């Protein structure tokens, strides 16, 4: 590969769309994934489908890798150009093309910011539930590529549950459209569902149709405080076993609570060992009924205090505080390494106990928060990348945590993706046969391995 292709890209697309200075290459060498960074050889900002097509055709001619990138908030290295080449940025394609309030769908370009989509559809009394922690800046394209989850996952599902149709450019620059706006569509293989979560290794999305649902009429937010994290974890399984699915059921441990309080100062009590943020939404009568069950479940598991948010502002504050958790944890130490394991809900207490145990065993500081309601936990090591010995202990601890999650019937990643960060653990989880099959599928679409190389499958160097 000739690394000095930027001038020819400029000729092809116009110089304002191509970046290749030293500073620019550096600034597109990372996303939110810790300790991972690789520089591209050029960056292209696509403004329309034609730009995407031209870039892919050019890259095919020149045999250059292409890594698609939204806002760069990924947590598994999905948008990091491990093998150099072109970073294709889609943030300038940020139009909401159509909100179909008759048929409950929305058509967007990939660069639309998730939170902007929320406010646009909510203004029409519609609802797009997936709400990843980074929604204020993450793009829909990135959400689809990583199949992002969020706080509302347990009741409403995740990004993939809302994708109806995808216009996708394949590696050679040709375009295919899969899916329709129809609720029922079983024509052929379900390629739409397959493409979701492929982390930019199969194609580049240029147009996305998402399903919308009616906006819930009312909601009720609870804050439950505990003296023992295991009690909080048990409350989660109790609520679910009593057949109530709240719209949000989030857990934070003491380390997280303190960091979040340091930043947000909304009066979270610092002496509690764990808290649950619970929300029920929907029809007022249903919410009232569910609220009773939630209250009982909390009390049955030794809740210290159960508070109900008095206003929308109070509830918004709690949710914002929760969304800040990961970044707030970064206050405590210079380096923050988080994971994304998910286990079946009854196994949460056991998983939490193991996390506590390994933190002690390896003498590291772990703050755990997460979407306990869907079993998705984010044990986060607060460390210092300059302390190589500690970093080594962190990796050892995660090995044990991953193995435990797998043995409990869980997964190594609930919502952040495999990327570079977890490709090493994937074979352990799915086995060699599944890896072989995935590789075959990948080769079908991208025989030369130029679309986002080094993700999901480790690079063969």
């Amino acid at each position, binding site marked *: 590969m000739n690394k000095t292709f930027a001038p020819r890209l400029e000729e092809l697309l116009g110089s304002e769309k191509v970046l290749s200075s*030293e500073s*620019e290459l550096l600034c597109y060498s990372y*996303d939110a994934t810790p300790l991972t960074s690789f520089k591209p050889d050029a960056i292209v900002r696509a403004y329309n489908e034609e730009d995407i097509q031209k870039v892919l055709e050019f890259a095919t001619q020149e045999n250059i890798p292409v890594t698609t990138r939204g806002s760069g*908030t990924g947590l598994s290295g999905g948008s990091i150009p491990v093998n150099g080449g072109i970073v294709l940025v889609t943030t*300038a394609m940020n139009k909401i093309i159509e909100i179909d309030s008759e048929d409950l769908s929305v058509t967007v370009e990939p660069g639309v910011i998730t939170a902007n989509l929320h406010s646009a559809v909510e203004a029409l009394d519609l609802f797009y539930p997936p709400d990843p922690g980074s929604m204020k*800046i993450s793009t829909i394209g990135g959400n689809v590529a990583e199949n992002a989850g969020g706080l509302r996952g347990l009741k409403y599902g995740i990004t993939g549950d809302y994708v109806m149709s995808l216009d996708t450019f394949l590696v050679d620059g040709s375009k295919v459209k899969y899916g329709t706006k129809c609720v029922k569509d079983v024509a052929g293989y379900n390629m739409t569902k397959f493409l979701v979560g492929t982390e930019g290794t199969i194609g580049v999305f240029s147009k996305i149709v998402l399903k919308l649902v009616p906006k819930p009429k009312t909601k009720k937010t609870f804050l439950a405080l505990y003296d023992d994290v295991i009690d909080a974890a048990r409350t989660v399984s109790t609520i679910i076993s009593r057949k109530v699915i709240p719209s949000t059921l989030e857990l934070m441990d003491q380390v997280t609570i303190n960091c979040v309080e340091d930043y947000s100062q909304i009066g979270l009590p610092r002496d509690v060992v764990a808290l649950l943020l619970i929300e029920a939404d929907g029809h007022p009568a249903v919410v009232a009924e569910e609220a009773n069950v939630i209250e009982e479940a909390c009390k049955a598991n030794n809740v210290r205090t159960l508070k109900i948010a008095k206003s929308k502002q109070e509830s918004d504050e709690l949710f914002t505080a929760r969304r800040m958790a990961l970044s707030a*944890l970064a*206050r405590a130490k210079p380096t*923050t390494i988080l994971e994304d394991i998910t286990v079946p809900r009854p196994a949460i207490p056991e998983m939490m106990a193991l996390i506590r145990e390994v933190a002690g065993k390896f003498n590291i500081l772990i703050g755990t928060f997460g979407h306990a309601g869907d079993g998705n936990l984010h044990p986060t090591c607060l460390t210092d*990348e300059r302390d190589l010995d500690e970093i080594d202990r962190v990796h050892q601890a995660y090995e044990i945590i991953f193995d435990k999650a797998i043995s409990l019937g869980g997964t190594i990643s609930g919502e952040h993706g495999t990327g570079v960060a977890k490709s090493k653990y994937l074979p352990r989880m799915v086995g060699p046969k599944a890896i072989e099959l995935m590789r075959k599928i990948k080769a079908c679409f991208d025989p030369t391995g130029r679309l986002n190389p080094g993700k999901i499958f480790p690079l063969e160097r």
Partner: protein
Amino acid sequence: MGKAFDPDEIARSLSTLDVHDYGDVLQCMRCGLCLPTCPTYRTDGLETQSPRGRVALIKAVIDGKMKASEEFVEHIYHCLDCRNCQTVCPAGVKAGELVLEARYRIEENRAQPLIKKFLLNYAILDQKRLAKLLAPLKIYQISGLQALVRKYDILKLVSDDLRFMEALTPKLPSRPLSEEISEEIPALGTERGRVGFFLGCAMNLIFADTSRATIENLTRVGFRVIVPKEIQCCGAPNIAEGERKIYREMAENTIRIFADRRVDYVVTDCAACGLELKTYREIFRKNPTFTGKAEEFSNKVRDVSEFLDSVWTPDIKLGPVPEIVCFHDPCHLRHGQKLTYPQRNLLNRIPQLDYRELPDEGQCCGSAGIYNITHRNRSMKILQSKIEAIEKTKAQAVISSNPGCLMQLAYGATHWNKGWNVVHISEVLNRSLRAGEKTG
């Protein structure tokens, strides 16, 4: 003779920052939450124009992964220093402050243009000098020359930049406030305390009437006001341009002057000055002999709204001001000093004043010191977004409390033909206090 531009030396000196340390750079976990609030990211949409990008660039230079090239320097100067990123960063990364530190290390290691040395190392030391520098402009305004120049758009032929600066400059007072006001002004009624007033350069030389109103307001709520005349610049322009030697000298001088006056508080009506005076405690943190004095001084500093709101009593009478208004938070007030409530509390106390919130969560107006001159295109795009936000409130008057913002917003109001008044909060309060006195 200054030094030639030396990238290696910049990289070396960056590895020991002035106030912060390398741990503060590492603190950034690159989550990207700062991106949507950064004015330059919002206009340009590029990672290089984001707080996260700037911290990454600084880190790369310190780590020896990138040269401290001319391009690096350019990027470090793209930041407006609005500190919005610091407000939203849950990890507590001081991206804006780190950029200022990088500027310091850059400027230490490259030749300084004469004009900059003249302004930052000489002119700024004495407000009388600054006043003399502005004298020709005053003559230009009162001689009728300005009317002529504007009528025939003469500057269009000379230089577009000059034409812009001309349009940005408000009508100057006949004399600086420091030459007109006495050094000590007694409280009206029972004296509740002594406040020192820090008369900033721009307020003194350009917005003299505004600061006169501020001082009057302070006396009206029961405070004796001490206005030291020998005051120098707060140093904000120096910090912004990477100069810290003269800055520290001026800061020491200011701290001594107010210590001598034995005041209970030091109040200022300029948001930029207020932030800088409150920052002295940080800047002297590593100076064992002066850190205590700096701490004591900074603890006394109050923005005028912050002060008035904290000493407000129910018996202070306010008259009606029947107007629809909005408040543009100066970045150095909202993000720098983390003050949002005092100014709103004050405005909401004024009878018949219809206060409306600007729907842009504290975005910068693009003034940012001399940013609107050095980076005019981007500054005007940022201003345009601000104008659109103001428009949504349907306000008749735009209130703010920083001279740079006032000039920028007034320029915007004229340029886009908006017809709304741009005023300092002290002027609105003064109207209301005077009206309150009449109604008794």
